[in-house]
């Protein structure tokens, strides 16, 4: 058994979560917004003709088939990237989403990295006698921060740094007038590739507030969970033994303790990641950040069904990929998982 069994198990659980998530997404796609065939038929002169037209449209959309078949077709469409054509932009949905996706990742990835680093770091002063003040500070911040969501941070930042002090831009990804050829869609990579380094500075200025708003909120959550899991780990016999072996407190906290404490924290991070995706929708809207969250809001406003479906599927894929990454990290950090 060993590694193979572990792989099989992981693939099994990944498959299960994949099905559940896609089924939810599918159901969501089916409930919005009402009957797509109805929307597309338009009006006809007499009811009988209209009904025929309507039936034809349903057959065309596959709505007359049994529900599980519809689900399978929907799945196939997702994986071939065939989401249809956006009503509003009149272009295929797949490329439209791919164009916006990098912007969302530009918000989400730095947030995860920063929040994890800072949140974990803030949970360590508790275990150094001389750093008691830092722990008090971090815990106080954490308690207040729990009640201040990314939404509120974002508004405060806009008012303070964007409007009153007027030091940071409050909308978009780049200053007006900076033209950047689109290569990968990630601004930093594109500006490095095309040699337009001035774009990086402008981009970072635009990035600070949205990322800070998301990060500050995530930090409090990671800090709380990691601190409490550190508290229980540091009471374990093996930590006492590590101390008895003569390891320094620094080594004990940052290597021996943290490695154990991160196991539950990582589990939380998986859950927390979807909260972060939620946050990115709001923050994108707030800072006019051209990602898929902002696209979703406008797609809903314009009742652009194919686009809504495509975005839901995209979120679904992001969640599945993240779960897989976290799962692999989890196996790396926790040797026990291989044989459980």
């Amino acid at each position, binding site marked *: 058994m060993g590694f193979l069994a572990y792989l099989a198990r992981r693939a099994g659980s990944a498959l299960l979560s994949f099905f559940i998530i896609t089924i939810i997404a599918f159901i969501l796609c089916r409930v919005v917004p009402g009957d797509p065939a109805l929307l597309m038929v338009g009006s006809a002169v007499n009811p009988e003709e209209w009904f025929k037209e309507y039936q034809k449209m349903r057959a065309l959309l596959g709505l007359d088939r049994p529900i599980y078949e519809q689900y399978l077709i929907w799945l196939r469409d997702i994986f071939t990237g065939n989401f249809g054509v956006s009503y509003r932009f009149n272009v295929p949905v797949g490329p439209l989403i791919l164009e916006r996706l990098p912007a969302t990742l530009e918000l989400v990835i730095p947030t995860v990295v920063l929040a994890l680093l800072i949140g974990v770091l803030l949970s360590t002063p508790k275990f150094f006698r001389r750093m008691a003040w830092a722990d008090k500070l971090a815990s106080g911040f954490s308690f207040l921060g729990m009640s201040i969501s990314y939404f509120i941070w974002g508004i405060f930042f806009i008012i303070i740094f964007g409007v009153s002090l007027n030091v940071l831009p409050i909308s978009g990804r780049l200053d007006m007038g900076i033209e950047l050829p689109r290569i990968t869609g990630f601004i930093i990579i594109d500006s490095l590739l095309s040699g337009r380094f001035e774009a990086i500075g402008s981009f970072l200025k635009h990035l600070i507030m949205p990322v800070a708003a998301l990060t500050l909120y995530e930090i409090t959550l990671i800090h709380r969970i990691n601190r409490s899991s550190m508290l229980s780990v540091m009471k374990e016999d093996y930590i006492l033994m590590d101390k008895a072996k003569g390891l320094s407190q620094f080594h004990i906290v940052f290597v021996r303790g943290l*490695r154990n404490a991160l196991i539950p924290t990582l589990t939380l991070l998986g859950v927390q990641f979807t909260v972060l995706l939620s946050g990115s929708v709001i923050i994108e809207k707030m800072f006019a950040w051209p990602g898929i969250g902002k696209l979703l809001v406008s797609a809903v406003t314009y009742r652009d069904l194919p686009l809504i479906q495509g975005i839901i599927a995209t979120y679904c894929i992001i969640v599945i990929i993240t779960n897989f990454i976290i799962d692999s990290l989890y196996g790396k950090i926790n040797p026990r998982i291989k044989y459980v």
Partner: protein
Amino acid sequence: MSLLRVENLKTYYYTPLGVVRAVDGVSFEMEKGEILGVVGEIGAGKTTLGRSILRIVPEPGKIVDGRILFEGKDLLKLSESEMSRLRGRYISIIPETPILSLNPPFTIESQIKEVLKKHLGYSDEEARRETLHLLEQVVIPDREAILKSYPHELSGGMCQRVLIAIAFACRPSLVIADEPTTSVDVITQAQIVSLIRSMQREYGSSLIFITHDVGFASKLCRRMFIMYAGRILEMAPVEKLLTSPKHPYTKALIKVAYSMRSTKPTKGYLYTIKGSPPSPTQPPKGCIFEPRCEEKMEECSKIDSIPLFEVEKEHFVSCLLYR
């Protein structure tokens, strides 16, 4: 000069329910190469005593008073970094809970090697060779495989052997064995005890053997002392303690041990000590054992902190009967 000299050591736990006086004025001395037994019931403060010597008493515990002279230096006066250079190098510990005492996400190899690297400055290659040698010493089969494994893949007995290897790795002057046999089964117990004994001889370390089992202690030690509710009640060479115990508690304890160990069928009769150990936060006034004592006198409940009286050479008793 003696190797270790503990004077009036007091370690208290400041719990929300009150102050627990886990070690309350313990003094003793031991020589180089000696094996000293510490015997007492669960909760008598033996483990805390052992941890106090290494200064690794967990929160909310605190060493509040006393001196611990190790090779003449007072350990309580050392800085934390000086102390960590001493731990695992000159004084080490074999814990009570082998399975819980190895850090789960680290391999056995790294957990043994790091002591050698940190304290003796070994290179990775040297440390590996010495690790294999140590595993041979503690009689572990299939050593290469064990090195690569993680703690949860090992049995309790195996973990204990690894921990013994770690404890003796740097040839320390003093090893504190804290009930090393409590959580392994009977057959392994005997193996572990004889292993500790042979390692101690091989490496020339002194040994403090903490146990609740008078039998084990008597087979291993030359001298031992009896702890009860944080205090030493009696200290003597093993034969004297077994043949002519003086303190009423020791007498009772040895009676209990004999009645348990005897192979004669005694028709369901087991000797027991009346009552239960005192409340840790509110110890009785006067002699700590007075409420359960069968030979108590009137002044026993009045005189606090009874000192150890020397009744014979090397035989001390903390009891007013021997004033």
